[in-house]
């Protein structure tokens, strides 16, 4: 039985309500927290700098975002590794293992593609850029959901959906950046990758919808 709500303990719940009257707080509100956060924000250093060789303007933005994509595709490969386990543990969602494997391998290929692109622009694909670091922080929740034996296929697909939607938007952005930089070769390669990512998103959306409906129907 889920015991988290107050209705499961009506009497204790009523006693809890008395807390509202019993608490006589000092003045102020959540804006006081904002003041402290603002102070830290003003004094904070950035996450880090871009790896050498130092670049400026569009080239710097591109390198940072390439690093972010590299980190995301690498982590994405691992998310699909976890989703494959999840679907193997519960086959009722009917998601073909070969489709999952196909997407997983494409994520790994995109990781390699970005690494080669960074190298072609004179960058270091082994370095972590600031946006790559932040993407790692963002991805922690997704990893936790996907690797948790307790989560369902539907919950795992929701997490993958978050990843794929972000991924699609990010590839669009990358294509704009390399296009702006006049790098036609990368525009072509990234467009192919973006098309593959669109397919991933469509598939995940379909699986997610079907699995949610199936769970509503007791499936």
């Amino acid at each position, binding site marked *: 039985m889920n015991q988290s709500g107050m209705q499961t303990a009506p009497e204790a719940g009523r006693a809890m309500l008395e807390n509202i009257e019993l608490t006589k707080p000092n003045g102020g509100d959540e804006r006081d927290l904002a003041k402290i956060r603002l102070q*830290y924000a003003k*004094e*904070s*250093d*950035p*996450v*880090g*700098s871009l790896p050498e060789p130092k670049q400026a303007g569009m080239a710097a933005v591109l390198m940072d975002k390439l690093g972010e994509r*590299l*980190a995301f595709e*690498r*982590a*994405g*490969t*691992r*998310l699909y*590794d*976890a989703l494959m386990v999840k679907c193997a543990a519960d086959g009722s969602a009917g998601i073909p293992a070969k489709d999952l494997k196909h997407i997983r*391998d494409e994520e*790994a*290929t995109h*990781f*390699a593609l970005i*690494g080669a692109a960074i190298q072609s622009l004179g960058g270091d*694909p*082994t*370095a*972590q*850029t*600031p946006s790559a*670091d*932040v993407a*790692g*922080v963002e*991805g*922690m929740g997704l*990893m*936790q*959901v996907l*690797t*948790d*034996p*307790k*989560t369902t296929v539907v919950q795992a697909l929701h997490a993958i959906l978050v990843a794929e939607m972000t991924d699609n938007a990010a590839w669009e952005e990358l294509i704009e950046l390399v296009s702006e930089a006049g790098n036609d070769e990368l525009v072509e390669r990234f467009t192919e990758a973006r098309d593959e990512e669109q397919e991933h998103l469509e598939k995940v959306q379909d699986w997610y919808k079907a699995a949610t409906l199936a769970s509503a129907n007791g499936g």
Partner: protein
Amino acid sequence: MKPSLLENRGVPLEKQKFTWRDLVQKPISKLDDDAYTRVRIILMNGIELEAHHFSHSAARMNKALQLPLAQIRRVEQHQATMINWLIGADHSPLETTIAYEQVAIDVTAAVAMNEPDDYLAQVYRFGLLEDFDHLYRYSALLDRLEGKDANNILQSYTDILPGRPTVDEHRAPQDDLRNPYDRKSAAPLSKLHALTIMAAEQQTHNYYMNIGPMYSDPVARQLYAEIASIEEQHVTQYESIIDPEESWLEKWVMHELGEVYNYHGCMQQESNPRIKAIWERFLDYELGHLQMACELFKKHEKRDLEEILPESLPEPIPFASQREFVRETLAGEVDLRANGAGIVPKSKESKASLAYRKQMNADGSPSETVSAGYKWAPGSELKLKVA
């Protein structure tokens, strides 16, 4: 005559003050700061936490010391906070784990190289090869779970290779106890080394016990459970090399001396000026603590400080890559095992340890599973697998 290191009286306790804002400073940059800045932060947090734990134990056994212990402990609490909060939250717990193992490898290797006592040096090399293996296992987990490269944390200072296999490190308790140094004849440096490494390992144990259950992945949970158990063995090993005949007050003075010694080493070698200023400030605080502990030692034990204190601080522990030393040790000593207090060839390992290991590994080995077929490669092992 008193040792010259007591001539600098540091900052008196009543002037050692903090605010909450002061405690919570800007963290270091995971990307831009040198890996050894992070290593020093982790080490000094461990040193402070050991001081804290020791102080509580001493207070429980010594009524007369409870007040001064509580007064100094309050400052140490806040020193530990300021230091530990310097690790940025963009380090995942597993990335911080990689840094903990870098501490365990490079600091233990430096200690093993400079340890004047041959037996103790052997003990450090023995432990070193086990922590070295943990780094390899955790690096595999980081790549395979979070999709990250451990070398972004290690900054190429420390190798990612198998050491003494973690699966073989599980020993019966009697094979983790070593012989202690003799408090009367041991070199001051030996005492400081032992306290430092014991503190670092104890903190690592506590850290793994706290963050292991934060992962939902059962493989990660198993790996932390397995390696936390080895860290418990390491704490057992390293506390056993410290002479148990030292009195409470003698141990207290040695703890304060250890803090002075390590802050001094950190201050000398720190590359980040803001962090260097913290080491300098806390060195002055610790000199104040050392003065207090020494006064209490003289008052209660009626012994001369020269009996336990060196004339001056020994050379600091170097914070640097120890790649060559670790590789040499690995080549020569990976097959050594423990039997009682002795470090012995594999063939002489105790039956008790073999039986214990068999039991613990009966349902499989998390450290073997997580790194099955794993080779570190720049960026990820995926690089070796994707054309």
